[in-house]
């Protein structure tokens, strides 16, 4: 199909979708209204289970099975990306090309921010049932925090302090831990992923039953998954990058 014809088709499609969407949006309850039937049921359920953060209670307790599947999606996509990014046979891995100089202020900021970011990540994971945050958010903070080593130091420093094999196991343990804790729910009570521990007092560190445990498991899984994923992208960019300099990648100005 020619480019002009494609643009006409695109225009028709966008107008059609836009008009249908606008008609549907006008039928929604007005923005900021007090009509929230799901909230009226979910918030009392979260409070009854001793969870101070209602969002985390919904994610890990009321919609626990959905979150298990979500975690499996993450697991599967990491496996898929790692399989796609495997260096092929003809691409022998060379040592990383020498890095450019890192500015001293950048290096200082990186070394200050690295421990700070890791502590914040652990805090966000462990207090996920009390304050905004949780395993998914904290896991991403932990994984990105570790990569400050690359920004402030060098790829070699990152490579030494990041045993990828260990994180591959961490990811598998995280995915399996969630499923196994669900089976514990069957053994002790009626259903898969039942919140079978004591709910405790709302706002305490040990409250909300299984929610903080699931948070920690997901934190391990997400942090490991992101680290493994970024390690594979790094392999492509740093170890193999100079082999593909001949590829005609459009310059930023040529992007249309």
């Amino acid at each position, binding site marked *: 199909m020619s*480019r002009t014809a*494609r*643009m006409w088709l*695109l225009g028709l*499609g*966008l107008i059609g*979708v*836009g008009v249908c*969407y*606008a008609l549907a*949006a*006008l039928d*929604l309850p*007005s*923005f*900021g*209204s*007090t009509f*929230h039937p*799901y*909230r*009226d049921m*979910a*918030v*009392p359920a*979260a*409070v009854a289970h001793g969870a*101070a*953060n*209602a*969002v985390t*209670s*919904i*994610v890990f307790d009321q919609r626990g099975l*959905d979150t298990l599947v*979500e975690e499996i*999606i*993450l697991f599967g*996509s990491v496996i*898929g*990306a790692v399989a*796609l*990014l495997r260096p092929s046979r003809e691409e022998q891995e060379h040592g990383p090309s020498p890095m450019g100089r890192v500015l001293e202020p950048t290096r200082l900021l990186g070394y200050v921010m690295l421990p700070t970011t890791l502590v914040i990540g652990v805090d966000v994971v462990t207090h996920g049932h*009390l*304050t*905004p945050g*949780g395993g*998914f958010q904290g896991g991403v903070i932990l994984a990105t925090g570790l990569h400050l080593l690359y920004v402030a130091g060098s790829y070699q420093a990152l490579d030494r302090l990041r045993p990828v094999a260990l994180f591959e196991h961490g990811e598998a343990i995280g995915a399996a831990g969630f499923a196994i804790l669900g089976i514990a729910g069957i053994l002790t009570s009626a259903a898969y992923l039942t919140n079978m521990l004591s709910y405790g007092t*709302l*706002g305490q560190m040990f409250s909300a039953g299984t929610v903080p445990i699931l948070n920690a498991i997901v934190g391990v899984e997400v942090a490991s998954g992101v680290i493994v*994923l970024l390690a*594979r*992208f790094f392999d492509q960019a740093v170890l193999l990058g100079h082999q*593909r300099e*001949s*590829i*005609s990648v*459009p310059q930023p100005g040529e*992007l*249309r």
Partner: protein
Amino acid sequence: MSHYAYFVAGALVLVGGFGIARSRNLVHATICLSIAQAGTYVLLMAVGYQTNAPAPVFGSTAKPTKQVVDPVVQSLCLTDIVVSATVTALLLALSIQIAKRHDTVDPDELVALQG
């Protein structure tokens, strides 16, 4: 104008779709997909918003009450963000493979399938 937030969400999805269709670079197309997905976050947040209601997080100073913004759509948004991140990672990995095998990242130049 009591529905404008929904139109912001719809506009983001349409702009993202427009960008994907006009894209001449697979990485650019992936970013456009992220923008379209950002529209779904805005829609979810807009559906759950209540004027002057606090966040659904309680504690010693914020006594549990039903008058908070909807936590159900916020948890759906969390799921949405995780799926979006995984899709982006997979698409970028595919782009790298395509760049290796076909020496191009322009979708218009990918005319023939190769085994």
